[in-house]
């Protein structure tokens, strides 16, 4: 495909549908465990297997998490009902899905991207997940499968489907939206947001139109977007495909398309004519869900700050307006939930820039250990590094050990690792030798050439293999200059 996704005359119009698995202990309508990666068909019961005679009972915690998502996306939380979406598929235990249709729990909200652009949220409704099909055959592809296996562990896992308005105009914005939404889902505690485990799944509705047009073009729905990268690539590809089609005098058919990541293209999955008539009707086995004002109030009050607010707070704690690189670090730190660690370390006296950089890189790389890292240890280590007791390399090594051990005294750890700071007697001796070997530079320094302080500091560090304390070296140099 050679046509660029956005030429001057074309504009892409994108809306995203995000399915988010809720991080509940149990499923949406029964007491079975909601867990990823267990042996097939161990977390099942008559309800989530859809056995004759079984009935659904709504999980209150799932409703609570769905309300948190609604609140975080500035939605109206409304009296809602459940509906049945009817279609036959072997992974669907009842051959209908309990979902919400014309009366969703959350509606009419918005999500603000980091650049300030607001994407409208049409709705965020509750529904149950299906089981999982595995096609068994030579290639693993559906068309050549000999048979299929069904795992119903996922059947009945609670989902919230978040539907955006068609407000997105670029692949970059689509990625930013998905990334920001993911951060919000994690921050609310509603989901772990793991795209690779399918706990956050994104479908994109893509159409194109002449720039300046107010009419929407015919849209295609793109499925199988398993990463932010896939999302961006698929949207670029699909918009370009549609533009090429239209410029060639063709028409876009409304259809569902599958993103093939390795081939880098979308392929037709089913046309509008093949689409199911879902025959939605009110679910007679459940009663209406209308959270009262008190419950909504409790949910609102219990909600912590969202990523945007936390990024702003972290930026403020670091002082001034961050550079682009720092903004990236701030985003990474907030996404990983490490902003609390950074601000606490800064509060305890750690240098802000250093704390941010270490959190965004070294701590992020060992994110599992980050939860056990006390801010005090982190701050003490960074102060040692800033004070010159440890070199950057030594400091990173100690940090790695702290993360591995889940905390500890950085000074003791540094000693244990052989990173001992230099005594002041030793510093004096080393400095004597360096001045003797560089008398010309020393003379110029004494006459006021201040930039040579860096030269002497460097020489001391070289001679002590980084063990000298930078601050002490500076003080000693100034003292000798008189």
């Amino acid at each position, binding site marked *: 495909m050679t046509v660029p996704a956005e030429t001057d005359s074309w504009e892409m119009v994108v809306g995203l549908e995000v399915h988010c698995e809720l991080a509940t202990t149990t499923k949406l309508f029964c007491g079975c465990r909601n867990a990823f990666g267990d042996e097939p068909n161990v977390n099942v019961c008559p309800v989530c297997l859809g056995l004759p005679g*079984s*009935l659904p009972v709504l999980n209150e915690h799932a409703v609570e998490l769905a309300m948190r998502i609604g609140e975080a996306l500035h939605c109206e939380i409304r009296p809602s009902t459940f509906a049945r979406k009817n279609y036959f598929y072997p992974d669907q235990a009842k051959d*209908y899905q309990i979902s919400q249709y014309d009366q969703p729990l959350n509606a009419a909200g918005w999500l603000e991207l980091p650049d300030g652009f607001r994407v409208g949220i049409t709705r965020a409704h509750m529904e149950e997940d299906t089981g999982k099909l595995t096609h068994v055959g030579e290639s693993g592809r559906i068309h050549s499968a000999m048979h299929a296996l069904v795992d119903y562990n996922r059947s009945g896992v609670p989902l919230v489907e978040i539907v955006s308005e068609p407000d997105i105009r670029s692949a970059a914005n689509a990625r930013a939206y998905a990334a920001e939404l993911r951060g919000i889902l994690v921050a609310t505690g509603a989901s772990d947001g793991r795209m690779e485990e399918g706990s956050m799944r994104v479908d994109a509705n893509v159409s194109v139109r002449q720039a300046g047009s107010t009419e929407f073009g015919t849209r295609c729905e793109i499925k199988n977007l398993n990463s932010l990268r896939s999302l961006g690539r698929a949207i670029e590809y699909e918009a370009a495909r549609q533009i090429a089609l239209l410029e060639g005098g063709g028409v876009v058919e409304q259809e569902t398309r599958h993103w093939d990541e390795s081939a880098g293209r979308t392929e037709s999955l089913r046309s509008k004519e093949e689409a199911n008539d879902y025959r939605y009707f009110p679910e007679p086995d459940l009663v209406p869900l209308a959270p009262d004002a008190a419950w909504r109030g409790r949910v609102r009050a219990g909600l912590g700050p969202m990523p945007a607010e936390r990024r702003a707070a972290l930026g403020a704690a670091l002082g001034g307006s961050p550079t682009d690189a720092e903004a990236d670090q701030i985003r990474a730190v907030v996404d990983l939930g490490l902003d609390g660690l950074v601000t606490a370390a800064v509060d305890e006296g750690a240098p802000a820039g250093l704390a941010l950089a270490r959190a965004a890189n070294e701590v992020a790389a060992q994110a599992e250990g980050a939860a056990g890292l006390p801010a005090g240890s982190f701050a003490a280590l960074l102060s040692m590094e800033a004070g010159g007791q440890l070199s950057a390399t030594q400091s990173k090594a100690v940090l790695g050990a702290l993360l591995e051990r889940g905390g500890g005294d950085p000074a003791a750890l540094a000693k244990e690792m052989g990173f001992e700071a230099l005594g002041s007697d030793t510093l004096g001796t080393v400095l004597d030798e360096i001045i003797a070997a560089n008398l010309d530079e020393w003379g110029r320094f004494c006459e006021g050439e201040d930039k040579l302080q860096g030269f002497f500091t460097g020489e001391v560090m070289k001679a002590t293999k980084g063990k000298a304390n930078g601050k002490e070296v500076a003080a000693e140099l100034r003292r000798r200059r008189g």
Partner: protein
Amino acid sequence: MSSAVSVSDDVRSGRRPARAVAEQALAAVGAGDGELRAFLTVLADEALRQADEVDATVAAGRDPGPLAGVPVALKDNLCTRGVATSCGSRILEGWRPPYDATVVTALRGAGAVTLGKTNMDEFAMGSSTENSAFGPTRNPRDRGKVPGGSSGGSAAAVAAGFTPLALGSDTGGSIRQPAALCGVVGMKPTYGRISRYGLVAFASSLDQIGPFATTVEDAALLFDVLAGHDPLDSTSLPSEPEPTRPGVHEGAEGVRVGLCRDLVDDCAPDVVARVHDAAEALAKAGAKVQEISVPEFRYGLSAYYLIAPAEASSNLARYDGVRYGLRVEAGDSAAMNTATRTAGFGSEVKRRIMLGTYALSAGYYDAYYAQAQRVRTLVMQAFDRAYASVDVLLGATAPTTAFDLGSKVDDPMAMYMNDVCTIPSNLAGHPAISVPFGTGDDGLPVGVQVLAPALGEATMFRVAQAVEAHAPVGPTEEAGW
């Protein structure tokens, strides 16, 4: 014939062992059911084991519960752990649920002895039990007649004296109509009063489990055991039920009874005559009887035959050959679904699935399903208006006495008309009961129906008992308990 009340009293007091009661019931079934075919499964060993447990409890000086040693037959759409539950369908033939319905658990807890599973129209769709994939049940009062349906097996089992109690399910009259045709008491409770957990769904917003008995008091006894909140059924009512049996004999004096023309006038003359006789009897017993008209009831049948099939089309989707029951292998899973459902469902079930699928389809939903829901609301409002001036309504249960086997199987509309008097209570979620009251010109039983507003079971039972007390003929079949 011994009533459930007297069996329970005898067993609890040690006058009669539960085992003897169970043996007698099993013997009666063994002797008579070859011809009637009320049962699909007889649980002989299990019944005797349960009876022995009851006797051991009595011997230990503890109370086995209000249904101590009382045999109960279960309609085959009630899930019984490890026991075949077919719903009268090939598609579920041999399926053994891994769990018990809430009512089954409640029965066991009350000391009842579950005698077996009874025949029914496939998935409770029918009014004659002729839609069972396993052959029809015959009416114990006349072997050439249908027992009514869809709970025909349970009605016949009680009428034949096999058991003093049975459970059925009533979606549009499936307890009351066969009760009327077999000459026994059959009652549908308020929607949500008895848990539906473990009742294989036909039309979820209409289905209710209810008792069959030989007397109103026995029906109240069984109802009291089953009524109550169940956390496993979201539509189950949260309020604690008041026991109804203690007030059953308080009489109808002062009760305002509305003789409802729209539940009588279109019935056969002999049925109309019996309902008027019952009204007269109630008036003599001190009830304030007045004629009343609720014309909206006449639209109930049409609304019902859209709502019930619509829900059924969704409820029955799960019988796809993937997880349990019948599977007919075919090229791919969609073809396997089609082959399985084609072979597994009978023609009436297919008719209703198609009707319901159509009623819910894009472009037809508003004209059919949504319109039917509006009519349902009108029927409910009409009930409310009626109950502003009366306490209960009185009408016929079924338009005729039991009809000949085979006479209506090829005429679905004629079959559907059997439910015209019972459907309004299902649409409104109200309780209603059918009580035998004399016979028609053919000597077969006529049922009179007492309808009450939501949670009006206590008053309904009192009036029903007053009707029963003045009924001209008692049950004709004797089991010789």
